[in-house]
Structure formats: structure tokens, C-alpha cells
């Protein structure tokens, strides 16, 4: 529907709902119940609350480096809503909305950013690979996950997320090419938030759209308004169906904006004007859906407040819980290098333990 008719060279962008929450393409509007729409909204809102509170904790010196996804909630939640629970995700590091939708416990997420590997030991059903730090390397894993799913006769697909900066890495290229050659059940989603830390998208690549990079691999590529959750949902859904049918991978460019700093270590005022941020604030994905819901009468200020309050409390409690989690025990740093500690690791572990005992540590 979108995919077949879309020409990524025309610099078009799929939008269903405009920035005022008005559905401008009713023909493309996905079939979502009111409950589902509220659920979409709540997930985005929850993500925003987590980001805001975590930034606050970070400023208070209670959190380590954190990468907020402010402004990208629709991109993430919309796409994640369009896939199944058993589908795989190979994430980058800024996909809070995806984690939430796929059922990752907030406690795990906090533990991870708190510097504890236990965080990435997610419940098995979450099916998201751990946060990937080496940019774009996860793309390759997605292709392998998809290969294995098909090989095993399952109809699970694998979705990879990557940033606009990540499209420059060789791994991006190789993964798309392999998935295309093998016609793998993959969906590749580029969150084009206009920046790789301080580096603007225009410096990252000269192609008119990122979606058109799909042409290099002979697969469909589509540019989507990443701040329009209906568009993100609808396009991802179609790409996922396509993948599941055996018709191969799709590249989705979600056109969005990183409203916050790259991470809490970053000072974006060095490289961008606040006025630019303000412009994008006007296109906020959460406000947009709220306007839609309010107009439709399925949400109101009261619900908003109640939900925010309840979620805020939950975030606070979870974070305080995580704050008490303490350091990683010595043995944990040794126990997961291999299935079984090697004799050398065992000896090093015993030596450190003896040292701690001696020093009363």
C-alpha cells in the first residue's frame, strides 16, 4: 500500500496526522481501537515521564550518563506497536519507547543506565537484544535473527533500529545488503533525529533522503513523519507484514528530532540554536496525539493528570529501588565471561576475593 507506491527519490514523507492532531490522510489511517490509541498515548507519555525524571535524577548526581529519547516517542512506540511480542528487536541505545512497549521492566532499564549488567538480563519474552553501543553493529544481528527465525520455520521477524549517524557505518550497508539478498524477514528503522551527537544529518550523507538508500539494495524505502505515531504504526505494520509474508526487508526512515541532549554528558547549545528546538517542539509527537484524543473525546485533562501522577510515582519508586541495588558483586564480573569459569578466571577471582578479605573490603 505505502511501500509499493512510495518513491523515496521524490522526497515525500508519509504523514497521516498533522502536527495539530488532525488526520489529513484518512485513507491511510490504521485500524486502531480507541483503547489501542490510548495505549499508544500512554506508552509515549510514560516514556516522556521516565526521561524527564531521569534527567532530574542525573542533575542531582543520582544517575550516570543517560541518553534521553525526548521527541522520538512516536517513532519508537508507533513502530513497536506494529510488531508482535515474539518478534525480535535489535536496538541501538535510544529506544526507550520500544523497550516499554515490548514489556521491558523499568527496573531493568534503570539498572542498565545505572551501570549494572543485570539490567540487560530482561525477561525472556521481551526479545530485545541488549543496548548496543558500537554504532550500527546491531544491524548485522538483526539479519541473523531473521535468518534463524525463517530457518526454524517460525514467522517471527526482526526489527533493527539505528540512528541517522549510524547509516554511515559499514555495518549498516552490509546488513541491508545481506537481508535483501536473502530476502529476510527484517524491518530496518532509521531514527533520523537530525543529529549524531553534534554532527548534522547533512554532514552525515548527501542522499536526499535516507529512505532512498534502500535503492542500493533493491528493497523498498519509505520516509515517514516520525512524530506522527499513526504513520509510524501504519508503515511499520505494512513492512512487518511484508517481511512476515516472505517478501523481504524494508528500510523506514523516521523523520524526527532529538529534542534533548545527545546524552547527559552533552551540551547541545554548543552546536544548535534553541530556536530550532522550539520549532520542533511545535511538532511534538505526544502533544499531537493528545490533541487527537481530546478532539475525539477519548482523553481529558483529568485522565492526563491521573496517569501522569501514577506513572510519576511508579518511576520514582522504581528508581529509588534501583538506587538501593548496590554494586555488582565481584563474582558476577567473573561468572558470565563463559558458561563455565576457566581455571585462569577462577584463580583471578579467588585472588581478588582473598585480597578483599585481607583488606576487609
Amino acid at each position, binding site marked *: 500500500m505505502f511501500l509499493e507506491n512510495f518513491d523515496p527519490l521524490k522526497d515525500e514523507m508519509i504523514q497521516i496526522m498533522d502536527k495539530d492532531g488532525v488526520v489529513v490522510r484518512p485513507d491511510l489511517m490504521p485500524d486502531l481501537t480507541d483503547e489501542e490509541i490510548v495505549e499508544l498515548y500512554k506508552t509515549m507519555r510514560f516514556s516522556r515521564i521516565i526521561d524527564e525524571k531521569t534527567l532530574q535524577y542525573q542533575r542531582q548526581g543520582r544517575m550516570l550518563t543517560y541518553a534521553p529519547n525526548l521527541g522520538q516517542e512516536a517513532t519508537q512506540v508507533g513502530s513497536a506497536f506494529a510488531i508482535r511480542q515474539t518478534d525480535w528487536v535489535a536496538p541501538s541505545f535510544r529506544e526507550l519507547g520500544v523497550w516499554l512497549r515490548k514489556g521491558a521492566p523499568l527496573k531493568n532499564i534503570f539498572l542498565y543506565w545505572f551501570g549494572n*549488567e543485570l539490567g540487560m538480563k530482561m525477561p525472556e519474552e521481551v526479545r530485545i537484544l*541488549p543496548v548496543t553501543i558500537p554504532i550500527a553493529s546491531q544491524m548485522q544481528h538483526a539479519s541473523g535473527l531473521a535468518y534463524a527465525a525463517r530457518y526454524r520455520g517460525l514467522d517471527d521477524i526482526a526489527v533493527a533500529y539505528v540512528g541517522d549517524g549510524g547509516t554511515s557505518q559499514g555495518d549498516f550497508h552490509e546488513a541491508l545488503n*545481506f537481508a535483501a539478498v536473502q530476502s529476510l524477514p527484517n524491518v530496518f528503522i532509521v531514527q533520523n533525529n537530525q543529529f549524531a551527537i553534534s554532527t548534522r544529518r547533512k554532514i552525515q550523507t548527501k542522499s536526499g533522503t535516507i529512505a532512498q538508500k534502500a535503492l542500493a539494495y533493491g528493497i523498498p524505502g519509505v520516509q515517514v513523519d516520525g512524530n506522527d505515531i499513526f504513520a509510524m504504526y501504519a508503515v511499520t505494520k505494512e513492512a512487518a507484514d511484508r517481511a512476515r509474508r516472505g517478501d523481504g526487508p524494508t528500510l523506514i526512515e523516521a523523520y524526527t528530532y532529538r529534542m534533548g541532549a545527545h546524552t547527559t554528558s552533552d551540551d547541545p547549545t554548543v552546536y544548535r540554536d534553541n530556536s530550532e528546538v522550539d520549532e520542533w517542539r511545535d511538532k511534538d509527537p505526544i502533544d499531537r496525539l493528545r490533541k487527537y484524543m481530546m478532539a475525539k473525546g477519548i482523553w481529558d485533562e483529568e485522565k492526563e493528570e491521573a496517569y501522569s501522577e501514577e506513572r510519576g510515582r511508579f518511576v520514582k519508586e522504581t528508581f529509588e529501588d534501583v538506587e538501593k541495588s548496590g554494586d555488582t558483586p565481584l563474582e558476577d564480573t567473573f561468572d558470565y565471561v563463559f*558458561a563455565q569459569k576457566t581455571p585462569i578466571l577462577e584463580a583471578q577471582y579467588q585472588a581478588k576475593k582473598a585480597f578483599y578479605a585481607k583488606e576487609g573490603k
Partner: protein
Amino acid sequence: MLVLNLVEAVTNALDTAMANDKNVVVYGEDVGVEGGVFRATKGLQEKYGAERCFDSILAESNIVGAGIGMAINGLKPVVEIQFSGFMFPAFNQIVTHAARMRNRTRGLYTVPMVIRMPYGGGVRALEHHSESLEVLFAHTAGLKIVVPSTPYDAKGLLLAAIADPDPVIFMEPKRIYRAFKQEVPEEYYTIPIGKAKVLKEGKNLTVVAWGAMVRETQKAIEILEKEGHSIELIDLRTISPIDKETILASVQKTGRFAVVHEAATTFGPGAELITTVNEGAFLYLEAPPKRVGSNDTIVPLPKGEHHYVPDTDYIVSELRTVLEF
């Protein structure tokens, strides 16, 4: 019993593994239709189909990276890097992902994958076809590194690598791929990873070698034993984790130690073995331990390669300095 050379033993091991376990998949550059440039995967595509044995795209990072995804999702990829000198594009995937997935997820996701690669010199090959890169892997936490030196070991170690729950780098000494044949059982068997093998007992000197250097060292030892020396030879078999126990027991008996390897000398594998001996048998040492490795030069093209890799004469001469110390 089959009678196979080393590369045939590799093929046989792959065949055995694929027959045993439907989840074993084999791929790499030219691995499918052609059966690999060394024919290590010969016949496997015909026998098991193109889904289980296929030609990858020409991209090592994808070969390993996709394998990581497959391994996490229930398969057992056994991939081939055409020559070890071409593993560099895949190094990021190997070090930052294959080696770390278990630790990063506290055991939730693991990467039981084998990365095979022919390595080493002595075959008059083009540039980058002769590297010995074991240290780059061995210094990386989360990887096991295995090197067979005989057809029998090749099959048993490769099957052990495939059965291993963690990523294993399987380095094949291509110089001896077809050097000799040996009886190899038809059935499934494994040789434990992490255990060295005392090939030959001796009293005055312990020598550790692996891969193609085992044969070179055996020849050197023959010469030296004719002079009356008694030398113990250990085939390391697994580079990481090192079997310290076997080595230290031997050095504590002989009082002298040497290691012979194809890799460049400085910051090379020999340094680790000598340090191991320092840490576990220093007071037994009657002579400074010795490493016999290749020069710290770039692997020369064929016309200069003989200056690079230790040969029998050079090993003899170096071991003699330890024996006569």
C-alpha cells in the same frame, strides 16, 4: 576408520556436526557452491541444501555479525573467514559482541558460534594470507582459541568447538592442511578445549608449540635428541584458556622452557607462556626461558618469507641455547 588429511578432517567434522544437529549452519565466502577455496566445506551444500550451507556476501563483519544473531536465535553457526588475515573487518563484531553477549545480558543471550579461519605461513601466498593472529583473540575476554595440529585433533577439537556454549575461534594451520594423513574415527568424538597434550616426554627441556609449528619443532627435537638431549614437547591445542597445569608440571620437571610460534615475537603468544612459567615455576628454572617466534616485521611476500617464520634449523639453534645455558 577414515584416513584423512587435516582439511578433510575439518570437512568430516562439519559433516558429522550437521548430520547430528539440524541447527548447525555453515557459511562464508565461496563456502557453498564451490565448497570453499580450500574445499573445507566440499559437498556440504549438496548434502544439506543451500539453507544450511551457503555463500555469504563478501563482508566479514556481516558473516560474523549475522552469525551472532543466528546463534542468539537458536542456531549453531560455523562460519569460515577465508584467510585469518581477512578477519579484521569482522573484529568489531567478534570482540564487541560475540565475546560479550553472555556477560552483557548476564546469561540471557549467548553466542555458541564457531569462527573458522585458515592461518599461518609457509605456503607462498599473497599478502594477508599468512598471518598468525592468535594474540589478538587471546587477549580478548570471552573468546576461546583452538588450534589443531593433526587430522585427528582437527575433527575432535572442531566438534568440541561446535558443542561449546560460547564463541570459539578455530584457527586451522593451512600449511599442513594436506601435509599428511592420519586415521580419523568415522563417528562423533570430541577433544576437550583447554587441555594441552604432552606429545612426547623428556627430561631437560619443555617446549610448547601448536599448529604447523608442532611438526617443525618435532623435527628440531629429533636432531637435538640425537645429540643426547631429552626434550618434552607439548602441543598447546588451545591457546586460550591456556592449560597452565600441564605446562607448569612439565617445567617443574625439566627446569627449562621454550615456546615456538609463528606469530610475531613481541607482544606475542610466547610472552604469555613465559610469564605463565615465571608465575608458576620460577624457582625451578635453570635457564632463562626462550621464545622462538617470527620477526617483528610485516609478514614478507613469498620471496622473503623464509626469513620470517622459524624453520627447523632456527628452532634447533634457539633451543640449543636453552639446553646449553
